[in-house]
C-alpha cells in the first residue's frame, strides 16, 4: 500500500503520545524537555503532511512549521537557562526538589 496522509498522521500521532508518555514518567527536567521536543516535532510533521496532501496549492502548513521551529528553539534556550539556574541554587534538576513555591 502506497504511504499517504494516513500513514504520516499515524507516525505523528505515535510520536506525540511517545512524547506525552515521556513527559508523564520522567522526573528529570532535561529529559522532560526532550519529550517536549518530540511533541513539537510530531506537530511539525503533521503540518507538513497536511500541506502536502490536503492543500498543496497553499504554503500555510510550511510556514507554520518554520515558525514553530523558531519558537521551539527559543523555548529550548530559555528552558535550559532556567534549568542551569535551578541547578545552581538546588544542586539538582529533579522536579521534586524544586517545590519552593508549593504551599
Amino acid at each position, binding site marked *: 500500500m502506497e504511504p499517504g496522509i494516513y500513514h504520516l498522521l499515524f507516525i505523528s500521532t505515535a510520536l506525540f*503520545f511517545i512524547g506525552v508518555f515521556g513527559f508523564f514518567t520522567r522526573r528529570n527536567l532535561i529529559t522532560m*524537555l526532550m519529550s517536549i521536543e518530540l511533541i513539537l516535532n510530531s506537530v511539525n510533521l503533521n503540518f507538513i503532511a497536511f500541506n502536502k496532501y490536503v492543500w498543496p496549492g497553499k504554503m500555510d502548513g510550511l510556514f507554520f512549521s518554520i515558525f514553530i521551529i523558531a519558537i521551539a528553539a527559543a523555548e529550548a534556550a530559555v528552558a535550559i537557562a532556567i534549568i542551569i539556574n535551578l541547578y545552581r541554587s538546588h544542586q539538582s534538576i529533579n522536579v521534586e526538589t524544586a517545590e519552593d513555591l508549593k504551599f
Partner: protein
Amino acid sequence: MNGSTIVFYLLSLLTLTFGILAVTTRQIFRAAIYLLFALIGIAGFYFWMAYEFIAAVQIVVYVGGIVVLIIFSIFLTQQTGEELPKQKMGRSLFSALAVFCGFALTIVQVLQHSFKGDTTEAISPTVFNIGTKMLEVNNSGYALPFEVVSILLLAALIGCIVIAIHNKPVTK
C-alpha cells in the same frame, strides 16, 4: 512495494524506535543521542515528502542546535555514569494506560475522517517560493509573523542572558 514505500517504512521504524528509546532509557546521555536519531528520522520524512528546505532547517536547528544545547546542559548538570532513578511501577503503568487510550482515541478519529485533497495546482516548496511568500506584505504574505518571530527571538536571547547570568554577591 517500490523503493519509496520501503524508504517510508524504514524511516518510520527508525523514528518510532529511537523515539521510544529516548523516553525510556535510564541513561540520560543515551537519551539525548536517541533523540538525535529520532529527529534525523523526522528530517528524513521531510526529504521523503520533497520538502527539502524544511528538512535542512530541521537538521540545522534541531540536530545541530537544540541537541547540542541539551548535551551541554547534561554535561553541566549530571554526574557522569549515574543512572536516572527507577520509576514507580504504578506511575509508568498509569501513564502507559493514559497514553494508549489517547492514542487509540486520536487514531480512530483520524481513520474515520476522509481528507479531500485540494485540486488547485501545487506550489513547489522551493526556497524561491518560500522567500517570496515570507517577505510579501500583500496577498496574505508572512511579513508580519516574520517580524514578530524576530522580536521573540531577540527577547528570548536577552531573557536567557538575564536568567542564566551569575550574580556575584555584593561586597562592600
